């Protein structure tokens, strides 16, 4: 395993471990335990959780890889699962035995390509699965930039009010009056296409919603009696914002982040379709959908590429939305009444 493989592996394993630890710690708090219990009783939500679990597993497995004889790139565990399904030379339909051309030719691995093959003969299912990791990296990367910024500014605006609030509101109102697409394209073109540019661009355009939410919730909590009591004890503003208000904001923030994640993943496809997405060699659903422009007008028609990518995207976004809905129901007013 070379150094970059090792880093990838560690980071990939770190993320789910952190998530599990966070959930276990949250369960000790009765409010979260109650929320989880409610989610468990919701069949749609549980299906969503299972689906997201599968996606996460694939993304993690796709991060653990090492050098293999005969291959230039490191082979991840997902790659190795497809070792027995060699590439073809061109398109072929799902489960086909011959290629999809004007004069079909027999395939190297007939009937073994579950979702068919693409323009260079690569297995579509393989590409779709590798796209999961890309989507997750973009989603988490963007949120890692957005969330701290939005939360910090939202807390400051809500807590201090007056000039700080005015300034922050000015910034985000101006920002949100620029159409997102234009801003996204502009940033990516300036920074050059790539993963980092995409995360920055998406981050800049998506922090406003969360900031407004945090600001609103901070305003609501700022004059509550428990905050007054903390001030009376002598707590500093920083302490009040982080120890008192922030933990009370977490439920709504988490719901918002879940929904943002799905929005960000969707946006990647849009940007790729517009030609400002990731580099062509990176496995992403957006690239697959972008390629469909030519494929759908081809003779014979190639539909399986876009169907697979769009399908995988749809399932991910749906699951995230169902989970967010369930969390919102589980967390919000009924808990407050207890």
């Amino acid at each position, binding site marked *: 395993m070379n150094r970059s493989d090792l880093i990838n592996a560690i980071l990939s394993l770190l993320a789910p471990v952190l998530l599990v630890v966070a959930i276990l710690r949250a369960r000790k708090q009765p409010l979260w335990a109650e929320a989880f219990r409610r989610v468990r009783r919701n069949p749609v939500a549980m299906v969503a959780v299972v689906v997201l679990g599968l996606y996460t597993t694939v993304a993690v497995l796709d991060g653990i890889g090492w050098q293999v004889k005969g291959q230039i790139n490191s082979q991840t565990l997902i790659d190795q699962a497809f070792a027995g399904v060699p590439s073809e030379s061109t398109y072929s339909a799902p489960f086909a035995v011959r290629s999809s051309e004007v004069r079909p030719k027999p395939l190297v691995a007939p009937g073994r390509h579950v979702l068919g093959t693409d323009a260079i003969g690569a297995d579509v299912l393989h590409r779709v699965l590798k796209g999961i990791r890309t989507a997750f990296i973009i989603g988490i990367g963007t949120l890692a930039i957005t969330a701290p910024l939005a939360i910090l500014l939202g807390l400051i605006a809500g807590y201090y009010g007056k000039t700080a609030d005015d300034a922050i509101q000015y910034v985000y109102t101006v920002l949100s009056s620029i159409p997102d697409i234009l801003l996204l394209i502009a940033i990516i073109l300036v920074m050059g296409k790539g993963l980092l540019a995409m995360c920055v661009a998406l981050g800049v355009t998506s922090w406003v919603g969360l900031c407004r939410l945090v600001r609103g919730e901070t305003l609501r909590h700022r004059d*509550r009696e*428990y905050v007054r009591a903390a001030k009376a004890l002598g*707590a500093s503003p920083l302490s009040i914002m982080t120890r008192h208000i922030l933990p009370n904001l977490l439920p709504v923030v988490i719901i918002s982040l879940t929904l943002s994640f799905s929005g960000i993943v969707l946006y990647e496809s849009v940007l790729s379709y517009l030609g400002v997405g990731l580099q062509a060699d990176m496995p992403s659903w957006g690239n697959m959908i972008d390629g469909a422009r030519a494929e759908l007008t081809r003779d014979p028609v190639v539909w399986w590429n876009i169907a697979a990518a769009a399908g995988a995207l749809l399932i991910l976004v749906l699951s995230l939305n169902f989970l967010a809905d369930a969390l919102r129901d589980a967390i919000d007013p009924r808990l407050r009444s207890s």
Partner: protein
Amino acid sequence: MSDAPILSVKGLRKEFGQRGGFLKPKGLKVAVDDVSFDIPKGKTLALVGESGSGKSTVGLMILGLLESTGGEVLFEGRSLASRSAADRHRFRREMQVVFQDPYASLNARMTVREAVTEGMRIHGIGASAAERDDRAKRLVEQVNLDASALDRYPHEFSGGQRQRIAIARALSVEPRFLVLDEPTSALDVSVQSQVLNLLRQLQNDFGLSYLFVTHNLGVVEYLADEVCVMQRGRIVERGTVDEVFDSPKQEYTARLLGSIPSTDPNVRRLTG
């Protein structure tokens, strides 16, 4: 000298107005108008009034949670206003507060232990976490709760128990003066007596001084040494409980006292 009142309020004033030059001064609302009183050490002053009288606002200004528009607050003769931030921070230890709503005054996401030790951490009371824990245990026991309460969350307790936790939190910094803003109004009658007994006992044991803000005249009769009656931001009558309740001088006070339902059906004050 130990004769000096522990808290003095002189000419306190609070205006709520709007910024901007377009509004005429008529847009100003005076919530508290020229309020002055002294609280002797170890005694209870009750601030009585109906909603809109400004009594809660006075309490908040004394605690420094609301800025006053005029007047001054003196703690043991020293003014709170002209102090450095560090001094004002020290004052926080001396004065604490218990609010009305036991459900809103505790952070739902902090355990009782965290709530009670927060003040200690801020003011450096207790040399180690273990010592603070020990103090926390004694505090909850002082308010007649079991030590097992420390690891639980507020919503596992009843209203009266939460109020006692709030009292323990207030005591955690060893204050000498407490502002109690309607501490029993949101509680059931049978629970009120627990809290009132506790407050009386704490005052006896630790020589605490109280500013009791309330509209409940029965509580005033029971606990207060002196009473100030507020109406629309001003003090309209003051005196000892006996003076004010037996011979009210102002018409408003008489009307207020005459509005209390009696607990004797033979003496129907209100409905005849």
